[in-house]
């Protein structure tokens, strides 16, 4: 019981923190004078109350958090907070079901960007702001934030951070103290967000839209305050700003941190993922643009390049904005974009999916085995960025890939069993596990997830959570040995 109490105690602190985060949309509501103000009063009160009571009940618990409890804590944070995050939406739209709004909230926190809401343009600004803020908080990670600002998570914080940060190798220690690392990451995140907001404003968005889109761009979430997403503005300048910051957010934030810290661009060159990420995305943009011209979708290459650049980067980085209904493009393009979403973004970025590093490791591993057939006596290490990658990491990546494949297959099967067509099921599974957002067919960029039934929504809610915590953090809770004393 003691163990659970520690976890609950820490959880209550994070919940209270979350209640404080709700003050921001309340401010927006008061400032714009929209009619959602009451929703926040209720939500903030309920959240703070729940957090406070739990804290009082568990405050006697010991402060030591064990490694195992860390996983439980992370998983609990990521299942409980979406429920509280859904409260303002529920209070404002009582006609919507909890299932749908929990999905919406989860989609926000996991920076997925799949939505069940339509008529976004008519929603009060503060509601859209809250959705964007959820993506921003979840993008870099709530626990990273908690470690950064709450001293009580200092001990064991490194484990928690590892459980939440995506990527196969998490040993990079930017600073000797974990709280400093977390602070550094958030500092870079905030800096880039401010830069993105200013750039969007300069490019022609309203102040509020600029902030909201800066939130969802940096978190690689993809929520927008308009049904037409960024297509609403139809502005090459806004799209260019968006592409730039989506690419920035797709790179490891630890690398950004090193660049700012040392005032040199060398860390970008040394980052083994950054260049492959940019190359793969760049080549895909040009390739898709060429395909679109060949198929006569756009009159000239420059126009095609504009649409390809924005939509390919948006999907590849698992953001999920769209400037056009790319589901109408020749089917190769959207399928290839879904593949990119699974593999492109770097570990330690705010993107989802398998991550570039794992893809590289598997690629190298395959070549290594081929090389071994030719030279059976050779010692061939697997190197990434000049560093040897040890076999245990490769095994972990292979295990991850297996679990990823099984998860993806399982979710697809569940969705087809519940009556979805194959393309919708596959793309919805991929879009949610990779935290991308829009899928294809029935859940394509031009429509929403509102067409799905409750069962399908729950399956995809779980998919988003699994994807955000990179599967193993969640699945470890399902193993009997985890619960054994």
């Amino acid at each position: 019981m003691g163990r659970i109490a520690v976890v609950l105690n820490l959880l209550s602190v994070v919940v209270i923190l979350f209640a404080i985060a709700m003050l921001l949309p309340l401010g927006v509501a008061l400032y714009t004078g929209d009619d959602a103000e009451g929703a926040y009063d209720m939500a903030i009160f309920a959240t703070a109350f729940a957090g406070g009571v739990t804290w009082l009940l568990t405050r006697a618990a010991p402060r030591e958090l064990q490694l195992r409890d860390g996983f439980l804590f992370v998983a609990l944070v990521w299942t409980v907070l979406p429920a509280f995050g859904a409260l303002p939406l529920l209070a404002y739209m009582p006609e919507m079901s909890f299932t749908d709004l929990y999905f919406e909230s989860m989609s926000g926190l996991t920076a997925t960007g799949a939505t069940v809401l339509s008529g976004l343009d008519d929603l009060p600004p503060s509601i859209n702001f809250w959705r964007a803020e959820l993506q921003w908080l979840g993008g870099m990670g709530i626990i990273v934030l908690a470690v950064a600002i709450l001293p009580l998570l200092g001990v064991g914080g490194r484990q928690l951070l590892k459980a939440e940060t995506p990527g196969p190798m998490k040993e990079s220690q930017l600073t000797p103290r974990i709280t400093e690392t977390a602070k550094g990451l958030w500092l870079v995140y905030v800096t880039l967000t401010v830069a993105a907001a200013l750039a969007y404003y300069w490019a022609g968005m309203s102040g509020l839209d600029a902030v909201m889109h800066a939130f969802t761009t940096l978190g690689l979430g993809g929520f927008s305050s308009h049904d037409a997403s960024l297509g609403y503005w139809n502005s090459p300048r806004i799209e260019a700003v968006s592409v730039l910051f989506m690419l920035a957010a797709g790179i490891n934030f630890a690398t950004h941190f090193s660049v700012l810290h040392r005032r040199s661009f060398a860390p970008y060159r040394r980052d083994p993922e950054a260049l492959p990420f940019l190359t793969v995305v760049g080549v895909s943009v040009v390739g898709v643009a060429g395909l679109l011209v060949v198929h006569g979708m756009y009159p000239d290459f420059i126009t095609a390049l504009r649409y390809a650049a924005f939509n390919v980067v948006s999907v590849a980085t698992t953001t999920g904005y769209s400037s056009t209904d790319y589901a109408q493009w020749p089917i190769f393009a959207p399928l290839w974009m879904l593949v990119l979403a699974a593999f492109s973004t770097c570990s330690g970025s705010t993107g989802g999916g398998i991550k570039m590093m794992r893809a590289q490791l598997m690629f190298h591993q395959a070549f290594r085995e081929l090389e071994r057939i030719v030279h059976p006596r050779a010692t061939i290490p697997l190197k990434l960025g000049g560093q040897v990658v040890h076999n245990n990491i490769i095994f972990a990546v292979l295990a991850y890939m297996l679990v990823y494949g099984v998860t993806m297959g399982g979710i697809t099967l569940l969705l087809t069993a519940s009556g979805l067509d194959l393309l919708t099921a596959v793309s919805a599974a991929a879009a949610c596990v990779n935290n991308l957002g829009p899928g294809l067919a029935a859940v394509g960029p031009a429509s929403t997830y509102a067409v799905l039934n409750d069962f399908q929504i729950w399956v995809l809610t779980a998919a988003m959570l699994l994807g955000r915590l990179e599967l193993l953090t969640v699945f470890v809770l399902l193993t009997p040995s985890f619960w054994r004393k």
Partner: protein
Amino acid sequence: MKIIILGAGQVGTSVAESLVSEQNDLTIVDIDPQRLRLLQDRLDLRTVLGSAAHPSVLAEAGAADADLVIAVTQRDETNLVACKLAARRFNVPRRIARIRATDYLDEEMVLGADGFDVDLSICPEQVLTDYIAKLVAFPEALQVLDFAHGRVSLVAVRAYMGGPLVGRQLKALRQHIPGIDTRIVAIFRRDRAIVPDGDTVIEAGDEVFCLAATKYIRQVLRELRRMDRPVKRVMIAGGGNIGLRLARALEHDYSVRIIEHNKRRSELLAAQVKKALVLTGDATDEELLEQESVSEMDLFVAVTNDDENNIMGSLLAKRMGARRVVALINRKSYVDLLQSGEIDIAISPAQAIIGTLLAHVRRGDVVAVHSLRRGAAEALEAVAHGDRESSRLIGRRIEEIDLPPGTTIGAVVRGDEVIMAHHDTMIEAEDHVIVFVTDKKRLPKVEKLFQVGVGFL
């Protein structure tokens, strides 16, 4: 000259061997009494037991009136500290240290007067690596040596039956390569030196030493020997310090395979090389050599720690079809046994590295010394100082200079200009003169030529 050698390992021993014969007072320091005793039995020198970096040990070794300290212990740090102490505590005028870690070499302040007061750092592994890398670049040569910061090269080639050289007079060679000035400075025939003149005829099996400006080396080699096809594939047996350095030096331009018998070492190697393929196994494992198609190799280099392994490995490789084999052989008797046999080139590490040290031991302003033919001959580069009055060289034509027998002036480097020596070439002040000495006994006389003095005329 009073010289203290710190460390009686392979390098220390071979340095001692070659210096002891030149009337130097040698003291050698080591922590292994067994090793010292063996050395003392063999050579005429003093030994001191103790840690080379301890002031008391240095004092006992006579650092107070030593002319030169050569720190060649296993550890860079010991060598550095010893040099610093020698400089500051005992005022030893010249200090040489063996430094392996490139980290120290890259940092200027480590070696300088602010740091550890090292006049010259040597890295035997690097010297050997450069040596072998040259052989890869010039596969026709037995040896390629640099003078005057690489402006002039001395190449050794073996003349073989049917080659373009054999059976011709040397003066024909000059007509053959118009526009390129080159000079054959010595010929070794059946281990005896011949001082060549225009009428000398080269025979099959002769070892020919030829001096030319570095940029013409390829043309000269083409003339001396039919050009082999360039090296593409190299197999290195032994992944020690030399094997690793060599693999790293060659892997960009050649396809490199490296054989290492220790599994853990080969993992370490694999981590440090970029493109080279690391194989785990014995250099003498026929099956492995077969599997990795040793017959396709242009060059097989055996650089393990073990002489016998190197010999057997390279013999096997040669038998199995490797085009050219090179073996690193420490034991002098083995080297003599094997040169010009089935092993194309036997490299003696001691001889390869001794030159760098010798330059500092020689009297006069000697810039570079290369030991040739296992120490029997020497090529040295020295600077002529003074004027017509104080020097025996300056202001004189080469034919006027009183050279000891068996000695040839090969070339003169004046600033950036390389002048091949002719009988009427005039030596000027500050010229770098490259002298070839086929008989080591004449060395003191040669050294004397370069010393600035008064009243010897």
